[in-house]
């Protein structure tokens, strides 16, 4: 099914490539892909650019259908796509958010150094693996009633902190303060609740992970200092989302949206782009249900972080406070949000879809924590388990060009089936161990599918965002220990 794309990509400059509106008569705006020429070659290998053009069909889309350098072929939207629509005549599309609603990343700092960590990595990985449920069909350690899950869906991180999973200050360092206000659990199906109830506080499988890292490069010492980060310091990164609850919310509303497309006479090139006007009951209901799943995901990451702190305290015979286990930030990379942006010199509220893209707000934006006002919003970009990850900050340029959005990770280049073939006869766990990375996974299958070779090099992706000024590099982290589903 692999097929390359040979449509028009007009070079604007070294890192910007435009799909002109004339490519397809249904396009309302042009497409714009951020990439280096090397990455562009990989992007052309599948149909992701066609999907960038398809997104440009959405009613009410403004400016451009955007794609970050980590784009790859998704369903409906490309993974790595950003689209903003107007509230009065624009649409909202569940395909522009994805099945794993509010899949996201959080980064914790520590006071620990590489020297202190080295002898403990193996033990820590084992203990974390035991404390944090992961893998296919994993059930959590939290027992909650039907009424309580409604509370999770309405209040997100706040629910978790009040339940004892974390600190009050964690909320401040979470995008949206860990809670979207328009959430309405009445609009989440029983199926979704039933899938979500036993899975709260689980990592899941696939590309989700928990990683112990060391900062091995500092690009901007001043900003790093403001964030409390320096070379040789240990950090922890958590990547997961809203589990079965979010998957079911997306599935349910895809069905609703198929009907809405007919009802509102919307012309689309792909059914997975199904959408409804933002002002319609279908659109409003989806937004409120999506907000529930987003809140569930923030509560989920909050619980996982809490247990991580407990495990660190146990292994280092200390307390989370003494170990300096503070949350740096938590970002969502599969979400749609109503935000205020400048459009042709006017302030306007837009619905920004980020499907595999991260919010990257600039310094002095009112929606970022007071502590980070001067430096801008931290942006957390994970790489694959064998290479590295980054912490960047948002810029004014992102507000001007990408509705305050940037890339979200490395992006796959190899299908899972192909990865499995390529890895035949190889011991991925041992290969990583030789590179000084201890990996523990629920299944060997996951390890093989998630090996470095299956991904683009995240450094190449991040470099594009840095060179275009969309976001700025602060520090790079190298993995030491990884837990996978």
């Amino acid at each position, binding site marked *: 099914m692999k097929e390359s794309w040979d449509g028009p990509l007009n070079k604007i400059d070294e890192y910007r490539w435009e799909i002109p509106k004339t490519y397809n008569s249904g396009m309302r705006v042009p497409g714009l892909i951020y990439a280096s020429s090397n990455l562009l070659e990989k992007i052309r290998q599948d149909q992701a650019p066609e999907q960038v053009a398809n997104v440009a069909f959405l009613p009410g889309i403004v400016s451009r259908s955007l794609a970050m350098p980590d784009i790859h072929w998704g369903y409906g939207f490309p993974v790595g796509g950003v689209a903003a629509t107007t509230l009065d005549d624009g649409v909202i599309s569940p395909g522009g958010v994805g099945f794993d609603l509010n899949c996201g990343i959080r980064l914790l700092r520590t006071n620990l150094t590489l020297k202190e960590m080295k002898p403990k990595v193996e033990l820590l990985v084992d203990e974390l693996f035991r404390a944090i449920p992961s893998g296919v069909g994993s059930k959590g350690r939290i027992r909650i009633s039907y009424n309580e899950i409604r509370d999770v869906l309405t209040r997100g991180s706040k629910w978790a902190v009040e339940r004892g999973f974390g600190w009050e200050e964690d909320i401040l360092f979470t995008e949206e303060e860990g809670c979207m206000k328009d959430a309405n659990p009445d609009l989440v199906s029983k*199926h979704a609740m039933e899938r979500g109830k036993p899975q709260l506080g689980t990592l899941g499988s696939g590309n989700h992970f928990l990683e112990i890292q060391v900062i091995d490069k500092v690009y901007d010492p001043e900003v790093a200092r403001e964030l409390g980060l320096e070379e040789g310091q240990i950090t922890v990164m958590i990547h997961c989302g809203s589990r079965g609850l979010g*998957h079911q919310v997306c599935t349910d509303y895809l069905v609703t949206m198929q009907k809405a497309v007919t009802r509102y006479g919307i012309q689309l090139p792909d059914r997975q782009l199904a959408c409804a006007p933002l002002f319609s009951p279908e659109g409003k209901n989806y937004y409120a249900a999506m907000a529930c799943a987003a809140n569930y995901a923030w509560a989920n990451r909050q619980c996982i972080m809490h247990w991580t702190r407990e495990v660190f305290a146990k292994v280092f015979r200390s307390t989370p406070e003494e170990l300096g286990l503070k949350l740096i930030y938590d970002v969502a990379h599969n979400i749609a949000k109503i935000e205020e942006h400048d459009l042709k010199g006017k302030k306007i509220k837009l619905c920004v879809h980020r499907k595999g893209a991260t919010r990257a707000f600039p310094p002095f934006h009112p929606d970022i924590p007071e502590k980070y006002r001067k430096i801008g919003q931290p942006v957390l970009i994970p790489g694959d388990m064998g290479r590295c990850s980054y912490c960047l900050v948002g810029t004014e340029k992102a507000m001007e060009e990408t509705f305050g959005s940037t890339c979200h990770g490395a992006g796959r280049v190899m299908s*899972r*089936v192909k990865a499995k073939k390529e890895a035949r006869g190889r011991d991925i766990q041992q290969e990583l161990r030789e590179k000084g990375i201890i990996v523990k996974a629920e299944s060997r299958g996951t390890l093989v599918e998630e090996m470095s070779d299956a991904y683009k090099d995240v450094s190449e992706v991040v470099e594009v965002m840095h060179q275009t000024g969309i976001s700025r590099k602060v520090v790079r982290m190298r993995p030491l220990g990884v837990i996978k589903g």
Partner: protein
Amino acid sequence: MKEFEILEHTADIGIAAYGKTKKEVFINAAKGMFEIIAEENKTLKENFYDKIKLEADNLEGLLFAWLNELLYISETKLVILNKFEIKDLSDNRIDAEVKGMKINRLGCKMKREIKAVTYHRLEIKKDEESGLWRAQVIFDI
């Protein structure tokens, strides 16, 4: 006739399922999906049984609903399904009985989590030349 084959997609996995009848292609699509989830699953003991009744606007919507319902059952009841009997099937209704094996967390036989069935390139149609039904589905992994 093959029952199904696995399709490659950069980030995800799909299946193409075949059948001499509409019922058969629905059953083979379900078998293909559980092969992705659990790989070899023909020899499982049977200790789970459920009945399914679903409605949709059209045949494609029904295939989407059918596979999603099986995923939901598998995830919430922790079962691998491997026997599918369709009592009644029209273009917008399905009535079926499914069987499979309960699994516990430790003896987990699931290899892969399918997050959802997608509408991306979703297709079900009869090939007039060969008379065979073919269904194509891409999963979000």
